[in-house]
């Protein structure tokens, strides 16, 4: 699988995504500089990593969407290319309009960095196909603006279309207010576009994919993408 990792000024999980894809998952991995408008045709996956692109000034992802690389990514996505946005990358994808909804400040109004549990709402996507049914993944979150919001009508549309990919839950997979770390509507942790080739998620799968860090639940998402490519 040929992967590209986008580097915006202020991206800070770019090296982590690179490390996992290149050294742990053993995939061909390249950097994509935000100022370059490039042809992504030969790529199988483009990752928008976490961090604070442009300092998250104004609003998370709001400035990054004007980067030249976004034009390339939009074309790539329209042609069916797979795009994964993690944390700040998810925020950028929302600002670009490639994904529906918005991310607002956590209910606690604090940055939260801890392990949470997510269940797979739609196991039939190229991001989740190796997860199987009823699997609960333990994945860390690290964000300040991670509370997903979308109006109730649009949320039911997403649910009908199978666009809700992950929801926060407890260790046994129960979705409840207590297991929702940030106040997201419907405990939504990750969503995809209608075609399911663009997916954004707040939890960081790259933070639990290196065997040395004991938890490897995140590998399954990258593995699904590899199986699918």
């Amino acid at each position, binding site marked *: 699988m040929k992967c590209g990792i986008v580097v915006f000024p202020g991206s800070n999980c770019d090296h982590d995504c690179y490390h996992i894809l290149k050294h742990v998952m053993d995939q061909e991995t390249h950097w994509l500089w935000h100022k370059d408008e490039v042809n992504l045709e030969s790529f199988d996956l483009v990752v928008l990593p976490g961090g604070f692109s442009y300092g998250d*000034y104004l609003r998370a992802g709001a400035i990054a969407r004007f980067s030249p690389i976004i034009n390339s990514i939009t074309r790539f996505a329209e042609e069916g290319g797979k795009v994964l946005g993690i944390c700040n990358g998810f925020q950028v994808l929302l600002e670009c309009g490639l994904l529906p909804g918005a991310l607002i400040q956590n209910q606690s109004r604090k940055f939260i960095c801890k392990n949470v549990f997510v269940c797979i709402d739609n196991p039939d996507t190229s991001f989740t196909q190796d997860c199987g049914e009823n699997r609960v993944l333990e994945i860390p979150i690290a964000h300040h603006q991670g509370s997903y919001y979308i109006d109730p009508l649009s949320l039911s549309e997403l649910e009908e279309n199978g666009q809700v990919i992950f929801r926060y839950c407890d260790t046994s997979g129960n979705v409840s207010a207590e297991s929702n770390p940030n106040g997201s509507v419907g405990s939504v942790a990750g969503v995809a576009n209608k075609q399911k080739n663009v997916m954004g998620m707040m939890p960081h799968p790259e933070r639990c994919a290196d065997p040395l860090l004991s938890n490897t639940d995140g590998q399954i998402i990258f593995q699904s993408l590899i199986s699918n490519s």
Partner: protein
Amino acid sequence: MAKSFFNLLFQIPDTVDKTKKNRPGPEITPQIVKEHGLTVEEFRRILDLIERTPNLTELGIFSVMWSEHCSYKSSRPYLRKLPVEGPRVLQGPGENAGVIDIGDGQAVAFKIESHNHPSFIEPHQGAATGVGGIMRDIFTMGARPIALMNSLRFGELSEPRTRFLLNGVVDGISSYGNCTGVPTVGGEIYFDACYNGNILVNAFCLGLVNSDRIFLAGAGGVGNQILYVGSKTGRDGIHGASLLASSEFDETTEDKRPTVQVGDPFTEKLLIEACLELFKFDWVVGVQDMGAAGLTSSSFEMAHRAETGVFMDLSKVPLREEGMIPYEILLSESQERMLFVIEPGHESEALAVLGKWGLDAAIIGEVIEEPCVRIQFEGKEVVNLPVFPVVDGALDLKRESRRPKYLDKVEHVNLTELPDISEGNTALKKLLACPNIASKEWVFEQYDHMVRLNTLVMPGSDAAVIRIKGTQKAIAMSVDCNSRYCYLDPYEGAAIAVAEACRNVVCSGAQPIGLTNCLNFGNPEKPEIMWQFQQAVEGMGDACRFFDIPVVSGNVSLYNETKRDAIYPTPTVAVVGLIEDHKKIMTQGFKKSGDQIALIGFTMEELGGTEYLKVMFDRSEGKTPVLDRKHEKQVQDFCRELIQKGLISSAHDCSEGGLAIAAAESCFSYGGETFGATLTLESTLRNDTLLFGETQSRIVVSFPEERINEIEDLAMAFPVDFSLIGKVGGTHYTINVNGKEIVKQEINILKELWKTSLGNYAGQVT
């Protein structure tokens, strides 16, 4: 006084007539000298050294460079007594940070630094810029910052400002550290009334560097170019070092808010990446962060280290505001700025790298032979000062030192006056919920402690551990100081801080290899404070020599007092340890029901200075625990041996709250499973000292039952005191002493108390 100074300072720009910008400054009157924080003797010395009267700008330069904060004039004679050498030391004190060799051509650069005064006035920006400053000290050495820690001290919970300061400081650290993508992996927080009027914010950073690519802060090579990099210079932070950090707080403190700098973590992140890219080139000669005293200290100090001079044209400095005068440009402490020295002919290459990252940069001068700093502004020379008098001319002060009288009152605690306890439940619960012992997860969950994928041991264990990618190695680090001990006995207290930080690092499986300190004290003009300082530095030095740990960097913060109330002496230390094999690391939490619990070391009849006395009786008294250094070393070596041999499942240092608290913390440590435990103790000691006394050199370990014999044999051979004290398992935490049950509590209830107490306090709306 402060107020009138600021009127003077901030009125200057308004009164400047644009056409007459270079008019001579005001005449230097005794009043102006005084307002610059210089004494009559110091001013006379300046006249002697430069053989003329300085102009206002030059006076400003002397004022900051001779301030306590920059010159260390009170502390320097004592600091010379600290051991700074060792086979692993690549760079000791004197540069931006110390550097220690970790083998295979790699090294770690680290330092801890205070940002106390600004954080009390404006907690969010004060703490944030403290983190920014310490990070720049690390990456100026050519090292990539890979871990942050911090040591925080707040006033008591009942003090109304404490909650505001706690939330502000944590928020500031969180917003700055998280944005730069450097994980905050550990730290400590204490609350005590002595910090009501003067909180402490000490920030630590560690970076990784190739041993042959360490950069130093010298302006070598006549003709080399001076390159300004980073944020534009504004009017923020003027006189932060001289007026804010080098005097006590009083009623006018709030007026000093303009001296607090404002941080921009996004620029810092770009600066890290751009600088690390520049460091790949051999034409980079030297670099220094523009920290305290900004452009002034960086230019003078870089010239001083290389025994050269510097010429600068301030008209070329990127400015944030119009109408800034040389005085302001030179003394501004605007954040996220660096000064590079590069070889001529490579200016456009340098500017291309910086431009790629969208940073402001400009060539503003060059290295000259004459050992002077000459500064020009709009075609006119505004400063011409010899380097040596400015950097090294401040006289070391021989401050008077006298043993404080309070010690006679607090030194002894008569145990017979205190009723012993027949049950320990009440004290146990109170201690677990007290903010100095309660879980700090409300704090560290606001810090990104995982980014960069190196964090092997998360915050909440004795030491944080990060791996070094591409090697088998890992680095452990711990920051520590029990300031109540230091208040009762600064010599012993400082020695214990060193011992405990080492013990913490050892509990993770590491060998301590270096130390950095942040010496926070009151007003050095008082003999009693100087006595505390002198004692603490001696205690620290002796302990470091005994444990063979070099002090490679550090910072002194004096004048930590408000309206004549000084903080407890707080000589914070951060110890860095090396783990050769990252598979052999240890954490503090119990791992399995049925495991044996044992204590390395032994408990003595000591209760002085304990958290127990403070929480239960509101007494900060008594003799500090005795530190038997030889015994301490044996305990540490034995524990590390057990970890190396893979014999134990957990190791946790006994500190505040003693044995009962240490074992309880192992039952429910962060990120791990929760276990019950039963301790069965036989002792002739009082119950309170047995459970809650803080005897040093003790570690609680657990291991599978079948390893008992092997471990006991090893303990005998060492020799070191080692006793089986209980078993992991069940739903309760039970302690039996001499056959009598004196503690029995449901473990989940204890955990809840411990886990939620700090967050509940911090989140309360009043």
